[in-house]
């Protein structure tokens, strides 16, 4: 694809629209899903199946006054919610949805996504630091230690995948998984590696995605029974709205990445009709799992969370990396 102005505009608009629409309607899906789990109707008044709820919520949030608490650092306070949303949108630029639908394919696509993903933690720090609120401050400190702890096993697991495929190009990674489900990185029996530890890699990666996106059971940053609303305690109006949308956009990015790295991207499980619909199907199944987990499990503790990462996930992923390297050397 040539990099003309019109292409760039289309790509940017598409990325923002996809992220925003997903963020808005995932809130709806989450509320409906939670309602189903809890045997209650959920939002069903506005429009069919409550489908008009997200735009109306958006209007409500925009109509509210944006208050900045006295003593807050204004520049940081305003920058934080923007920083929460923007890395997620940027990540969509390089994510391939099928072999033709991709804004800009890069040969270091994974690196770019991780670079932007680590900026997400910064928004939490900004929000907590600038709010001048003890709860927000405690929450942002938690969020930083959490982000540091879970980026490591996530990156190590990604390196395992990169070693198998020998490429950081997301399209190349998917291409190598083409064929049936047995070629996928989650269970690579017929692919070019025969690493039977990959299902565990997938679990580690998925757990890290949960933690990186601040989702339950790792939602310590916004543990409402302890820290009121966590880092966004002082935010109202669209500032809160952006944090909320940023969370869901990050979930979509994390699920996209999981689909590409482990679940064969747009490949069909039976090797038939590869295409974008498979990608979308896998993506929403993963997101559905996110919602399902959130409404089933209670929250962990901060030390339980850090212990899980430093004592279990990091050693396991390191071992897996070593094992994979050994396998590659042997075969």
């Amino acid at each position, binding site marked *: 694809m040539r990099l003309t102005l019109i292409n760039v505009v289309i790509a940017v608009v598409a990325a923002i629209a996809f992220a925003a629409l997903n963020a808005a309607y995932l809130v709806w899906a989450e509320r409906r899903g939670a309602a189903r789990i*809890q045997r209650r109707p959920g939002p069903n008044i506005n429009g069919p199946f409550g489908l008009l709820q997200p735009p109306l919520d958006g209007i409500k949030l925009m109509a509210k006054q944006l208050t900045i608490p006295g003593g807050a650092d204004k520049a940081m306070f305003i920058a934080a919610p923007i920083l929460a949303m923007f890395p997620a949108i940027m990540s969509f630029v390089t994510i391939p949805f099928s072999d033709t639908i991709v804004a800009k394919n890069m040969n270091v696509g994974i690196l770019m996504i991780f670079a932007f993903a680590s900026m997400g933690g910064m928004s939490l720090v900004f929000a907590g630091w600038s709010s001048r609120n003890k709860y927000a401050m405690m929450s942002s400190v938690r969020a930083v230690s959490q982000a540091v702890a879970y980026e490591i096993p996530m990156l190590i697991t990604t390196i395992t995948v990169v070693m198998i495929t020998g490429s950081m190009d997301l399209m190349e990674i998917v291409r190598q998984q083409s064929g049936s489900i047995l070629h996928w990185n989650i269970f690579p029996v017929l692919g070019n590696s025969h690493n039977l530890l990959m299902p565990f890699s997938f679990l580690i990666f998925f757990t890290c995605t949960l933690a990186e996106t601040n989702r339950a059971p790792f939602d310590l940053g916004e543990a409402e*029974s302890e820290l*009121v609303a966590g880092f966004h305690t002082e935010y109202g109006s669209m500032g809160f709205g952006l944090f909320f949308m940023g969370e869901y956009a990050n979930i979509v990015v994390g699920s996209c990445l999981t689909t590409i790295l482990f679940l064969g991207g747009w490949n069909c499980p039976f090797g038939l009709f590869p295409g974008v619909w498979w990608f979308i199907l896998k993506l929403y199944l993963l997101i559905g799992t996110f919602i399902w987990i959130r*409404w089933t499990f*209670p*929250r962990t503790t901060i030390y*339980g969370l850090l212990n899980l990462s430093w004592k279990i996930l990091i050693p396991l992923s390191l071992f897996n990396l070593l094992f994979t390297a050994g396998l590659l050397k042997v075969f």
Partner: protein
Amino acid sequence: MNAPILLQPDETFILNVGPQHPATHGVLRVKMEMSGEYIVNAETVIGYIHRMHEKMGELKTYPQFLMNLSRMDYLGALGYSHCHVLVVEKASGIVVPERAEYIRAIMVELNRIASHLFWFGAFVMDLGGFSPLMYALQDREHILDMLEAVTGSRLTYCYFRFGGLYNDIDDDFIAAARRFIPRMRKSLKKYKALVTGNIIFRKRLEGIAPLTPEMCRKYGASSAVARGSGINFDVRRNEPYSVYPEFDFDIPVYHECDSLARYMVRMDEIEQSLRIVEQGLDKLPGGPIMPDKKPKIIKPPAGDYYQAVETARGSFGVRLVSDGGKNPYRLKLRSPTYSNMHLFDEACRGMMIMDALAFMGSLDLVIPEIDR
């Protein structure tokens, strides 16, 4: 713009948890001195919804005060009314018909189950799991419907009268209660699978907030707080009242002293209350629900009377000092949550805030009952 506050590494800061905070379930304020996430010192500040129930007891006549008791603990109201009517009946020598006492026991136990169910949901919500609350409220709804049909209200009952009851139970109630018992047993199995067996849930509670039996005695703790620390005390068995000696039920006691033990005691108590309701329905005698002979105006002879009962939150006592008049001279209410809550100040020192708030949830605090 305010000047920035620079905090030294060894300096502590004060965190006000409450009076409006999602974890305190009411207007309780805890002033916590924090060092990072660790609590150095905590002080519970109460009195935000004090309504002078004890003073009202002195100003109102005995029947007028009946409805006040259910405003103390809105979740397990009947146990409190029960204690009040028992002490007044004891003072004025009113004999209650047997049927009325059986119905009282059934109602109180149903109310206890409803209260424990609400606590269960709120406790798991404190730990971050939201769905069990909805399941628990659905089960509780059945009880509230049953009680509403007989007593006329859903939370703040005024059902017990001096000498008996306001309304007799009918066949519909008995059928509904019989239907409810197996349903609740099934739900208990579900809660066990969904919550009790959950690894995150257990890790958050096991070994957290150990309360020694000495400490429980020192503060006068009761209910699951004491029984989770190995103190085998339940007013229903140790100082029997009403028709409880007729029933065959166990007092669950755990010796682990941690938050999980307190949780387990309450979950087991639901099963024991179901057993009492079952036996009460089987043994329910016929007859009147009000005594034939009852003084028109309640005027207990001068004296000092005390009665304790086991409510959902622990041992509740009413001390009645009468001077022979239409109003009590003094009506002292000993509420269990008040004693249970004061454990928190001492026990939470050195704990992390999230463990401390989970511990607070396991105490089952109902704030209007502390600030009576």
